[in-house]
Structure formats: C-alpha cells, structure tokens
C-alpha cells in the first residue's frame, strides 16, 4: 500500500500541501482529483522524492519510503520530457537500468514495450524525430518499462484523443490486474469514474474526500434525481431538502437527501404531471467533486 501521510509543503508561505493524506492499494486504480492548484502535482512529486517536504511522510508497505522503493515505482511527470537527441530504444533501456534492471533485461523490456506501442521500427530513431503522440507513448513506456510496483501518473490522459485514451486506460487496467498500485490524476471526471476503483479529491492541500468510488457515492448525503414531466410541466416538491441542481429542456436535475424514499418522491412528482423520466441514483463523480471543492 502506498500511503501519503499528512504531507505538508508550502512555497514562499503559500501552502501547497496542508496535511494531505491518502492511500493507494496494490491491484487498484486510484483517481486523484482536485481543482487546478489544489496540490495534486506536489503530492505526486513528493511520492517520487522530488519535493522537500515540510512535514509528513510517504510510506510503502507501511514503511517510510526510500530510494530503493522509489526505483520500483513508475512515474509519468506532469511536465513530460525525455532526452530529445537520444535514440528511443537506447533511452528506454538506459532508464530501465536506472531503475535497477540488468542491461539485457532493460534492452528486452524496451524492445517489448516499443513493440506493444507500435514503435518497434523507430527504436533507432532519435526521440525528437518522433511525432508528438509517439513521444507520449515512449514517455508512457518509460514509466512502465520496469514492471513498477506502484505507478504514479500525473494527468496521463491530457491531450489524448478518445482512441488513445481508451488504449491508455486498457494499459493501466492491465497493470493494476498485475498487482500494481496505480495513482493517477485527471480532470476528466467521467473517465475517472469509468477507470477507477478508488478516488481521492484534494482541495487547497487537503484530501477532502477519499474511498472506493462506490462507497463515496453511496455515502454521499445526496442522491441525484433526474425528472421529466409530460409537456414540460414544472414540479414544486413538497418534501423537505430537495434542491434544484439544473434545468435542461424537458427535464431537470435535483439533489435529494439520501434518506428520501424514492416512492414518496415519485408520488410527489406525479401530483405535478405525468412522469416521463425518473432516475434516482447516487451522485456522479462530478457532483461529488463540485460539492467537495465547494464549487
């Protein structure tokens, strides 16, 4: 288990991490969410020892983490970058060796990943000769090459087209199935909801919501109600605590206290007109996110 324990870090008096804690489990994918500037990148860099923390610690399997463990991690930095003039295959093999692989093992792994990413014929090319998309693939291979025990991916989906995003999601799932603890940050909430088992939301340097996706959705104090009445008739709920979230042409979304009986809701709505659409569900990740960060 990868644990961030009460991490604190401030830059020039401005806190970037203010006691942030979370845990990522082997074999599971944790989506790490938060508004811009909330501390996601700082937290992830701290895992790789790239931040001189003011307080707190990062632990792996219960023990404070050191260089030998970090070398067993894979990292995709927010600011992508490799050696532009170094040959692709050679570069990957070199990075593999930095992570403790043997020369032969690193060469094999580099060739294998280039094959898998469809770049086998570009192994001898310099990185700068590759298209932007292919450079991104090489960067991903650099994170995965050494079969990491934990994978820290900072915005891995940013800038990918839907097909590439699906392929990446597949690779990530595959790694998790192999027992890797995956931690990745993203702004694409629907994608996170689709890929992740666990979620952590950070706001102003603190983790404000964390747990398995199902659990946090179930635990939420609200449910989401989508309702449409025939002819666009308007519903004025008589039950307490119901809040109009948004109106679309023909239907509306409400936040309803979690304990509300759906049957009572339906009955109440039916008094306003014939119900043509009624969906009573746990909140989406977007709802939870907005609520958690107070947007």
């Amino acid at each position, binding site marked *: 288990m990868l644990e961030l324990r009460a991490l604190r870090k401030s830059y020039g008096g401005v806190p970037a991490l203010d006691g942030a804690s979370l845990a990522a489990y082997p074999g599971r994918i944790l989506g790490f969410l938060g508004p811009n500037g909330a501390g996601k990148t700082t937290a992830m860099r701290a895992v790789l020892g790239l931040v*001189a923390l003011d307080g707190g610690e990062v632990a792996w399997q219960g023990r404070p983490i050191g260089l030998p463990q970090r070398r067993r991690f894979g990292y995709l930095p927010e600011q992508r970058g490799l050696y532009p003039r170094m040959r692709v295959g050679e570069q990957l093999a070199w990075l593999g060796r930095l992570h403790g692989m043997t020369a032969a093992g690193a060469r094999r792994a580099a060739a294998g990943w280039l094959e898998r990413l469809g770049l086998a014929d570009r192994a001898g090319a310099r990185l700068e000769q590759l298209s932007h998309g292919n450079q991104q693939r090489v960067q991903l291979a650099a994170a995965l090459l050494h079969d990491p025990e934990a994978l820290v991916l900072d915005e891995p989906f940013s800038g990918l087209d839907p097909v590439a995003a699906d392929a990446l999601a597949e690779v990530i799932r595959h790694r998790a199935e192999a027992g890797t603890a995956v931690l990745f940050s993203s702004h694409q909430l629907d994608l996170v909801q689709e890929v992740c088992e666990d979620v952590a939301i950070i706001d102003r340097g603190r983790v404000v919501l964390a747990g398995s996706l199902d659990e946090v959705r179930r635990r939420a104090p609200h449910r989401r109600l989508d309702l449409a009445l025939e002819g666009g008739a308007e519903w004025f709920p008589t039950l307490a605590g119901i809040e109009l979230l948004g109106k679309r042409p023909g239907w509306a979304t409400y936040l309803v206290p979690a304990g509300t009986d759906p049957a009572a809701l339906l009955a109440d709505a039916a008094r306003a007109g014939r119900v043509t659409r009624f969906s009573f569900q746990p909140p989406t990740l977007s709802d939870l996110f907005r609520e958690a960060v107070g947007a």
Partner: protein
Amino acid sequence: MSAGRDLYLVGMREVRTRLRSRAFIISTAFILLLMAGALAALAFLSDRAPSAYRVGLVGDPPPGLDGALTVAAATSAALVGTESLADREAAEASLRAGRIDAALLPDGTVLVERRGAVELEALLTLALRQAGFIARLAEAGIDPQEAAGLLLPAGRVRFEALDGGDDPGGAGVAVATAGVVVLFVVISSYGQWVLTGVLEEKANRVVELVVAAVPVRRLLAGKVAGIGLLGLAQLLLLIGVSLGAGVSLGLFALPRTAPATAAWGVAWFLLGYAFYAVVFAAAGSLVSRQEDAQAAAMPIALGALAVYLAVFIVVLPAPESVGARVLSFLPPAAPIAFPARIALDAVDLWEILLGMAVMAAAVYGVVRLAARVYAGALLSGGARLGWRQAWRAARHMAGG
C-alpha cells in the same frame, strides 16, 4: 543499488551521446587547430624553426656525403635535401634564383650566395669533414654505410650552467604558454558543457524522471565525471599529438621538464575541471531556458578569463615572484598558475603538493556548495532562481 553503478550509468550516457555529437567533434577539431597555432608560436618563440636547406651537387659527390649530410642535419635538427647540377654555371644560376642554398663543387669548394648562414656553413663543414673521414675509413676497409652509422651521435650533449638555469628558456616559456592556453580552453569549454548539459535536462524536463530514480548528487557527479572523462581524453590527445608532432617534425627539442609538466598538467586539469564544472553545473541549474545559458555562464566565464589573464600577466613573466606565488594558491587560478610555473621550472615540489592540498580542499568545499544549490534548484522546478533561493530550497535535502 550502489552509487558507483549510478555514476557509471549517468557518466557513460554523457560520454556516449557526446562522442556522437557534432559539437564534440567540432570542438576537438577546433582545439587541435588551436594547438597547431600554439605549435607555430612555439617554433617562433623557441627560435628553433626547422631549417630546410637545399644543396646542389656539381659532379660526383664524395662517397659517404649523403650519409654524413643526414647525420649532420639530424644533429642540428635541420632538413637537408640535395640535387645534382651540371656545372658551376648551373649552380650559380640556381643560387641566384634561390632554388638552392649552397652548391658543392667537385674541388670541395662550397659556393654560397653570401657568407653568414652560420648553421648551414657549420652543417656543411661537418658533413664534408665526416665524408672525408668516411672515405679514409673506406680505404681502410670499413663499409661506408657502417661508417656513417658510427657517426650518429650517441646521445644529446648535456650542458650545465653555473647560474643553475636548465633550459635556455625558449621552450620552457613556450610549453608554459601553450599549457596555460590549453588548460584554460579545456577547463572552461568542458565546464560550459556541464552547464549546457544541466540546463538541457532541466529545460526539457527529463530531469524530473531521472531524479526520481537517481539521487541528485549522483546525477551531478556522474555528469561531471562523464564530461570530464571526455575532457581528459581530449587533453591527452592534445598533449600526445602536439608533443609527438613537435618532436618528430623537429619543431622543438623536448625540454627535459616536458613529461613532468604534462603529468602535472593532467593532475591540475582534473582539479581545475572539478572546481569549475560543479560551479558551472550549479549556475546551469538556476535557469531553465536555453536562452538563459549565456547569462548563467557569464559570471563564471568572466571570472575564469580574469584569472587566465592574471596568470599571463603575472606568472609567465615572473614565475617566482610573490604575485605568482599568491595567484597559484588562489583556487580559481591555481589550476593554470601551477602548471605554468612547473613548466618554467620555477616551483619546488613541496609547493606543488601544498598547492594541490589547498586546491583539493577548495574543490571539496565548492562541490558541497554547488551540489546543494543544484539539488535545490532542480527540485524547485520553477523558472529562474537566485543562488540563495536554491540554497534554501535544498535545506531538507542535505542527506539526499
């Protein structure tokens, strides 16, 4: 995993990528060219320019003259070529046209355009006497080839002066001058390579990935060592090529102190390079755009240049002066001041060793200092940083 393996991996990457780079090949060629210039200066300064003479031979030359000429030429480090001429008229015409420097007539007379070419006259006198000697030996039954071989000098004649001076100065000054130039160029150019290497890694962000797997200090040390290895190889190549070329072309007779000077020069290169390279590395880590490389290197490059000029002005003319002594104990100046004084034979062994101890301490200090700035700056990731900000940023990284 061991620090040694990290250093090896980081260092070898530097060596491999740079050996392939055009910049390295061009800079090596450039330095070799510079060396050629220094060699020319050396020949000029040491007043031992190779003399090449053409001697015309009228009629049949005395037997053994060819061998004797070769031996005489080798003795005075000159080159002598011969050509046959039909008669005295042809010889006079060739002399006037400047095609030959002297002509040997059948009666043994040497014809010259005007008297005063001391070296040539001495050389021909020697050759003719030896040719006569060989001829008499031949009459006594000794093979002329063998006789000529016997005349080869057994070794250099050693002169000892009452004033204790060992070298007539020319070659020593030239070696010192060339040494100062080469050391300055190699140390500062390789130092700047370290700077651009550090800056490149930071500018294209790959450092983030590397530092996640390798401690910052090892990255710095491996980089400095890798680039330094190339610098050392280039320096050895330069020394080898220039000494070899100088001696074999007869440009200069190797001063007795040359091998020692070269060995000390290499030792001082290592110290000087280490000193400047880590400072350059720290400066490179403080900026993150290629455009800032010049500005980052400027203060250090200017400092090195000032030191270089000071050595030229103070140490070379008066290597045993107080100023020269003071300069050679200032760490930024020591790596070029000491080799210059060693080449001039103006320093005692104890002084060299003391200087090296002082320098080694200075290198240690500057490595600690620069490594901390480098670590702090790399990990703050931001744009441009001051030395003090970087120093403070690294306060928690002391062990890393």
